[in-house]
């Protein structure tokens, strides 16, 4: 169990952990309709981020990442929760704007990157206070 800092508040979530091993560009890297990782060069290419607790080692590339994350929220294909090791203002803007639109968004929390691996393969729960537990 880890108490994480809440970056963007949202709905508590539960899902299988998806720990990315390389940074990703959401624009061009994640299909906004299906949530599938479309970047053929990414090690987790083909995995689906929808409904998973997504552990992100960082984002790269286009500043339209926010648009892709908001589109995932709007399509009901967002991750169950996002876990980052540092705040990413461009990506998280997608959640901030979706909240302003009145759409239900997942939580985004901050956790030490070294802890990511301990959650690999488990079912994960992120509660409303930002506490991350193995379900």
């Amino acid at each position, binding site marked *: 169990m880890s108490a994480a800092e809440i*970056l*963007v508040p949202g709905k508590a979530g539960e899902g299988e952990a998806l720990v990315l091993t390389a940074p990703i560009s959401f*624009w*061009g890297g994640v299909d*906004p*309709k299906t949530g599938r990782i479309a970047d053929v060069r990414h090690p987790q290419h083909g995995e689906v981020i929808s409904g998973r607790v997504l552990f992100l080692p960082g984002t*790269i*590339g*286009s*500043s*339209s*990442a*926010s*648009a*892709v994350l*908001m*589109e995932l*929220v*709007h*399509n009901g294909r967002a991750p169950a929760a996002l876990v980052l090791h540092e*705040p990413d*203002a*461009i990506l*998280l*803007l*997608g959640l*901030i*704007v*979706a909240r*302003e*639109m009145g759409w239900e968004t997942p939580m985004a929390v901050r956790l030490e990157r070294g802890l990511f691996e301990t959650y690999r393969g488990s079912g994960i729960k992120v509660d409303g206070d930002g506490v991350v537990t193995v379900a």
Partner: protein
Amino acid sequence: MSLALSPEQQAIAAGKDGAGMAMRIVAESARLLGAPRLIPIASAHIDGALYHGDSGTLFAERLVEDGARVAVRSTLNVGALDLMGCSRIRLQEPQRGMARRMMEAYRRLGCEQSWTCAPYQAGHRPAQGSDVAWGESNAVVFCNSVLGARTNRYGDFLDIACAITGQAPDYGLHRPENRRARLMFDVSDLPLSFLATEIAWPVLGSLYGREVGNAVGVVSGIANHPGEDALKAFGAAAASSGAVGLFHIAGVTPEAPDAETILAGPEPEAVIHVTPQMVAKARAGLSTAAATKAIDAVAIGSPHLSDAEFSMLERLIAGRRLAVPIYACTGRHVLASLEQDGRRKALETSGVVIVADTCVVVTPIMPDLDGGVLMTNSGKFAHYAPGNTGYAVLYASLADCVESAVVGKPRFTDIAA
């Protein structure tokens, strides 16, 4: 340090109208970035009007319904449609209708219908030292580096929110101490004959972006100002291969009269000595197509072509008929000049497809072709075309692009380095 808002900013943020929503978005971003305050901006360039999905259209329309309007001069980057009707866009309904609604919403927010990724060549040139909020990576890097105005890389939604509030988070490249160079990119070992070529700039830009990532560097070893279109090509390539928001060129760009003035310390933290081998490798890396006997199209104009670049294109085509089309992407600011003296008609008769308001990598224009090969002189097109269009790319100078389009086969004459 946590974010402090003025009583006036707090009052706006508490509002139920569009201005309130925009202020909350700016303030929340500032909080995430660790900015201590918001600062006023002089202008904005909005990259958020390109359709990625319905949610972006609904957001822009919500701002319109709630009475928001931009508070500062705001130009628009490309959209997904050619509103000038120069080229045929293959975007289908219902996406087409949503893309049109999105463009209309941004117009109603008070943005100028510039529809170009080169606003700095369409009369939008903020003063050196002024704070602005610009989106679109090539426009950001040009604005910071060549104009000396100050902007971060503003993402979708934050750009329009800053334009409505007239405020931006105070962090990053808005702060003078973060604009100083830590790395040096020394090109003095390269032959002058190479540095004088057109392809030197996009190729060096591509190499520069990969070498420096998101750091600020200064290029040394350039004797003469290469011209604005060359700096445009350098920045666009650098911002595609790396996260470059600001570069300096000693003796050329406004904040770097010489390297010493702009370096953060007495010595650079690292010096990248550029060799002809590195250049040759960077150039080869811009092409993805294997040896090929034929090409299917040429695409130029990323960033959008200037009037001077069209003049060069006309000289190189010299009235000949093209075997494969040249897609020439530009902004409407250049169209008026092209309409004079039958220039546009002559180009189109040769087989040039003029694309206005948008470009071939952001919306479907070129036919879907299995194994299609595209030739380009743009480092940015070379970077994005394979993923966004499915075409493999061959990189070449404009002269070689034109000769190849005339015969429909790749022709290379330019020296590598």
